[in-house]
Each structure stands twice: as C-alpha cells, then as structure tokens.
C-alpha cells in the first residue's frame, strides 16, 4: 500500500524521521499480565510502528509465551501523523487499513508495514538528496586558496 503513496518531499521526509517534542508524543499502552495498562510514550514514528504488536489470544493468555500487546490506537496514530508530522497521505492510508480490519490484531501488521515502509521511503529520499548535495558540492568551484 505504501507504494501507492508518492515519495515525500525532503522536508516532509525529515519531519517523519524526526523525534517530536515531549508535548507532541504519542501515547501507547503496554497491556501487562497482572498489572493493567502501562502508559508508553512514543516520540518517533519508528518507535510507534515498532511498538505495535499482538499475538493470538491463547498466546497472550499464557504468560510462558511472553506475548505482549503493544497498543496504539490506529486512529490516534493517524491523527498524530496528520497533525504533528503533516503527512495526510499516510494518515489516510492508516485510517483505510484500520477501517478494513476486523480487530486490532488484524490491523497491527498492515499498519506497521505501512508506516515502516513510509519511513524507508523517507530514508531513500534523503539519501538521494544527500547524493545530489554531494554532486552539487563536487561541481562547485574550488576554494580561492586552492584555485590560486
């Protein structure tokens, strides 16, 4: 699905890879056996996507499996992406996946893949940008001293 999204501009790509201020963080929750939900603060898109996880009901119920639920509300994630990072395309794509998933478990994989794919796009964009910068730098005139 990420392939449907046009590559971001360099400026957007940098924002999507950045760490946001504490006040703009996304809050997830880790559902722990015996404890309840524990707030988890997420400050990068990579952290948020990586944090999302779940497992089969039977595995989660069996502590020996050490299966976790890392919960991030998919619609909250979409709102975060749109409001804080300014990526409307990615936000809409996350909403589309969430709307089509029968459960959180069904949404986790596709949403994570979508977001991590987007971040990969960003890195490619910035790498290309860096290469361009390097080319521009190599084409630039030599310093006065050396030219002299």
């Amino acid at each position, binding site marked *: 699905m990420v392939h449907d999204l046009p590559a971001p501009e360099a400026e957007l790509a940098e924002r999507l890879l950045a760490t946001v201020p*504490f*006040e*703009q*963080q*996304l*809050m997830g*929750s*880790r*559902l*722990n*056996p*015996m*404890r*309840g*939900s*524990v*707030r*988890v*603060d997420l400050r990068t898109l990579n952290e948020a996507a990586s944090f999302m*996880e*779940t*497992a*089969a*009901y*039977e595995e*989660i*119920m*069996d*502590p*020996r499996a*050490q299966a*976790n*639920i*890392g*919960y991030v*509300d998919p*619609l*909250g*994630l979409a*709102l*975060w992406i749109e*409001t*804080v990072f300014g990526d409307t395309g990615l936000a809409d794509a996350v909403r589309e996946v969430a709307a089509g998933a*029968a*459960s*959180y*478990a*069904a949404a986790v994989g596709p949403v994570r893949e979508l977001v991590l794919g987007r971040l990969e796009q960003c890195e490619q964009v910035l790498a290309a940008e860096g290469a361009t910068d390097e080319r521009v730098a190599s084409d630039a005139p030599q310093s006065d001293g050396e030219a002299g």
Partner: protein
Amino acid sequence: MNGGYTGKILNVDLTSRKTSIIETAKYEDWGGGHGIGSAVFWDLCKDKTVSGFDPGNVVTIMTSPLSGTNAPAVAGRTEVQGIGVQGYPIEWFTRSNFGGRFSGMLKFAGWDGIAIQGKADKPVWIDMRNDDVQIRDAGDLWGLDTLETQEEIWRRVTGELNDWWSTGRGRDNGRTTQRPAVLTIGPAGERMTRVAALLHDAGNGAGQGGFGGVFGSKNLKAISVIGTGGVKVADPSALMAAREWSNKYAIAGNWDNYQPAPFGMGFHSAPGSAAAAYAPTPPIPIGPMGCMACQHNCRVRFGGGQTNGSSCLDFLFYMWDARKHGGKPTQVLQDAVDLVQRAGINTFEMEGTIIWLANLYGMGLIGRGKKIESSLPFDQIGETIFAKQLFDAIVEGKDIGKDLAQGSARAAEAWGRYDEDTASGVLPLQAWGYPQHYDARTEVEWGYGSLLGERDINEHDFNIWVYWVPTVATLSGAQPPMSAEELSELMAKKLVPYSDPMMMDYSDEGIYSESMAKLVAWHRHYTRFYKQSLAYCDWSWADFYNTYGPDHVGMTGEGEQKFFNAVTGKNITFEEGLETGRKIWNLDRAIWVLQGRHKDMEFFTEQNYQVGAVPGFTTFEAPYVVPVHENGTWSYKNVAGRKLDKGKVEEWKVKYYKLEGWDPESGCPTRETLEKLGLANVADELAAAKKLPA
C-alpha cells in the same frame, strides 16, 4: 474439638521491652487475620489519630485459622495492619499482606498473631522460638539489607538450635529441620521512608502502607519465628476430603487436560506460570515456587539466584528495561528487582514514581540545571544504573530521593506539582496517594473500592473476567470463553445475597447504579473476610470461573467455608462469612472516621473527572473492554475514553452509603448499623469523639 486457633496472640511493648499474651478467644468471632487485627488495633491503640511513626501506633501481624494447614492457596499468607505512612493526605489505618511461610511458622510456634506497640530505645529484633520470646539487640543487623539480615538471623538461630538438637529430645518435642521465618526491613525502612516494605524469605513483601518505615520508627529490624508444633484441625478427614475435592479444580487433578489459565492467575493455573512472564532474555533455567501448601505455586526461582519468589509489580515496576531492549525482559530487570528487594522498597510505589520522573524529564522539568535539580541519569531509565542510583538516593535521603522517600504524592506537593500533575495524569495517582492500578473510569469496582477504603484495593476477583479476558479477546479477534450475558448469569449465581445480574453492567449508566453499589459492597465484604481475614490468596480466589470445574463453574460460594469449617469445627455458611466481612468493613470505616474521614473528602484525583483518555494522541488511551447492558442487550464494549461525572459519582456514593447503613451526609456508619453488627462500643467511641451522625 475446635481447631485452627492456637489461643494466644503475642503482645509486644517495645518501649518497656515487655511481652504479654492476648487470648485469641476474645476475638475469634472476627475470623482471623484482618478481622482480628482490626479488633485488636481498636482495643490497643488508644489514640487512633496519631501518626504511623508515633510510638502509640499499634501494628498487628495476624495469621488465619487456616495458616499452616494444607488448605490450598491460603495457608501461607500473613496480614499486616496499623496506621500506615503511605496514605495521603492522611496516614490512614491500613493493611498489607505477604505470602511465604511466616504465618504457618507462627502457628507452629503456638501463636495466632503479634501486636506491636511502643518504640525501642535502640534497634532490636524479636526472636520467637515456640513459647520463648526474646527482644534482642539489633545494632549489628542495622544497615544490612533484607537478604543479609535474614541470612544472619538464620545463622544465629539455627546455630543455637543445633545445641537444642543435642539435648536429645524427640522429634515431636522440639526438633525441626526448618529455618526460622523472618520478617524484616531493609535500609529503606531503617530510614523511616514512607515507601519501605516488609520482606520475608525471597520475594514475599508487604509493600503498600509503608510498614517498613513504621518498623523503622519503632527501631524494630526484624521478627524471627520458629516452631516445632502443629495446627489443631477439628475434622482432619473433612479437611483432606476438601483438599481432594479442590484438586478437581486445580491442575493437580487435571494433568492430562492441562489448559493455560488467563495470565497464570486463578486457582486452575499451572505452577510457575505467572512469574514466567518475566524470565530474562537470553533465557536462564527457572523452576516454580510458592507459598506454604499452595496448589499452583505461581512464582519462580531463576537459575541466576536473583529475584527469587518475586512476582507481578516486583518486576513490572521496571519493565522499562524491556522497552529499551526489544520488548523482552533482560538481566537488567533481574538486577533492578534484586536491588529494590534488598533495599526493602515498595515496588508499587516505584512504578508510579518512575513513570512520573520519566514524564518530568520528557517535559524538561527535572535534571541538572532544571527546575527540579537532580543528577540522576534520567536518560538511563531502563538500565541498571538508573535503578541503583534512584534506590540509593531514596535510602540515603540525597538528591530527589529526600523527597521521594516521602512518597510520590508528598514529593509532588513539595515540588509544587501535585495539583497539575495528578490532574493531567503525568503523576498517575488514583486516590489517597496510591498509584493507579486499574482504571477507576472504566473498571469502577476497583476504583470505588479503593476510594471508599484507604489504598489501592489490589483485589483481582472481577478484574480478569470483566476486563482482561474480554479486552484481550477483542483485540486479538477471538471469542471470549463467556459471553457478557453468560458472565452476568454466572455472577448472579455467585454474588449472594444480591444475585443481581445487573451488577456486571459497566455501561455509562451502570457504573452509577444501585447494582454497582451492590457489587462494590459484595466485594468489600467478601475480601475483608475471606481474603484478608481467612487469608485466601488473591491469585487463586475468588474462584468464579474455573477451566476444570463442572460447566467451568468455580468453587466460590462452596469452597471458602468448606475449608474453614473443616479446620475450625465451626459451621458457617458462605453468607455468614460475608456478614462478618461487613462487620469488619464497618469497624475499619469507623477507624477512618476517627482519623478524619468524611464524604466531602472522598474524591478521585482530578484526572479521573477531567481526562477521559479520549481517542487522540496526547492522552493515555488504553483499550478497556467490559460487559455492558445497553438497550436490553448484553455485550462487551470498549469504554476507553470515558471520564467520570463528578456529580454522578457523588450521587452514587449516597446510594452506596445507604446500602451499607451509613449516614448519607457524612459517610459515617450510624449507631443503628453499628449496633446491629454488635459494635455498640464502636458507636460509643465515635459519639465520644463527636463523629457519630445525629
């Protein structure tokens, strides 16, 4: 023949260093544990408004009549009570408890419990060997951590017991191969912090209430007990039959049909399963361990020798380790748990504290050169170095540890942040200065119980079935083992005398209903008697739904009194036990009223009314799927995002007060209610203090 009770409670006055005996018979009607503890406290503590640190405070350490028997998931638990020092803004009379074998050993030594008052002029420990009780100098134990203290006392007592063995007396006249059971404080207790726990053996802790600091204030380092007697059982055949009957509900009777129980909790769960969740990566060998006579032994010993017997919050308070290391616990967690247990610090308090500190750090408010000056390495939260420096700071009273030793609520007040941070949830306190455990806005029976009491209730009776199972099933796209309607029907059968299926309605309307008042009342009465007085373990009881039970119906309503009657020779019904629970609950309430409790101060922290965890990204949103009855239909529904309506909570409190026979204006039990419960003397003392409603 009556059984279960030894007939005597040790009364220790540390000021005079004199001991005496309280006859248990006077208190037997209270059942045991908490009931007897509250009644003894009432009689011995002359001024119930003193600070928990005052020598006049009375601490009771009580067993159950089932302690030391082979009744399952009950025989090893000990109840601790007294004026605690953790409660905020008032140091409420409170309780804690711990597992292991201390209560059984007390019974074997011939004691139903201990009452401690006064203050020693220098550090002491109490050495109990059957009837012989000595108050010994603890100058050379002061400063040792909780494990070192126990090891040193074991050496001292067993060394002398070797001499005792050499007297040649027979096995039944004074020989034992057991080590003494020791209850001790660590350095955090010696420093009289409000976050100090009592520790016994490995991993058995009484954390909430700050009783470690109370022991420290009395200059009491430890209590050691070793006994060579037994527990009289009124009807041994009935007890054995009951144990065999209960095996049908346990894995012991179902080896060929093993099924994992939710989160390793419940009577039906498998040995070691609960604590296995915290095994480190890379893995090390583990083996199950448990309390005396337990049928499922939920805890574990790790091959590395650290954290043995620890469980639940002992680990969860530092799951930041897992966040830093790929989602799974590591050796860091083993190290942090070992450090906190040795220092004798309350892990539950640490969990809320570390969340708060991380938030303050994220907000740029704490650290070097920040508004709250601190040199702790906040960027290392999740690593051993942060845990060690934090605990050291608390124990040594340095850096921010000086304030945190007073508990997070008082530290927040000292830093001028209490109102703002508890309203936003940055400091996750629910009520009375205790960190939130389960959410009052969603799982209201937990929140209401804590609010009407004095601490986080920490009673999981309903929690698994109204929250965990439906929530995990919903998130993972599975069917829960019971529909919401089936759950309401099961609970209606179990929750006598109310038998109201609407008690399971956690909808926006249901949480303010008369039925919810009944649920909370049932829970308060059940736990006060069966779990805190008879000492049935929270990890096994109540047994509503049981994987192995007929039609998956558990033992509650039949099992609890079956063991009690077999051991004591009494013949109570389940409902009579609940009524004793009501009586205990009212006595506790009367003590709180004397301490200053009033309807007008029973409020949750503001976040419960102001922050609804609405879908978004700047609020803490946790899925919370609970049973609801809406438009005539039962279903499970995610109620995350809900906030409490303050006005409706106030109306609900009045419904609850009326149900309990308490004055709707003050929340104080009326004379009529107290006299009906046989507590006319309590009404008289309230009247003398001008606290009894007109």
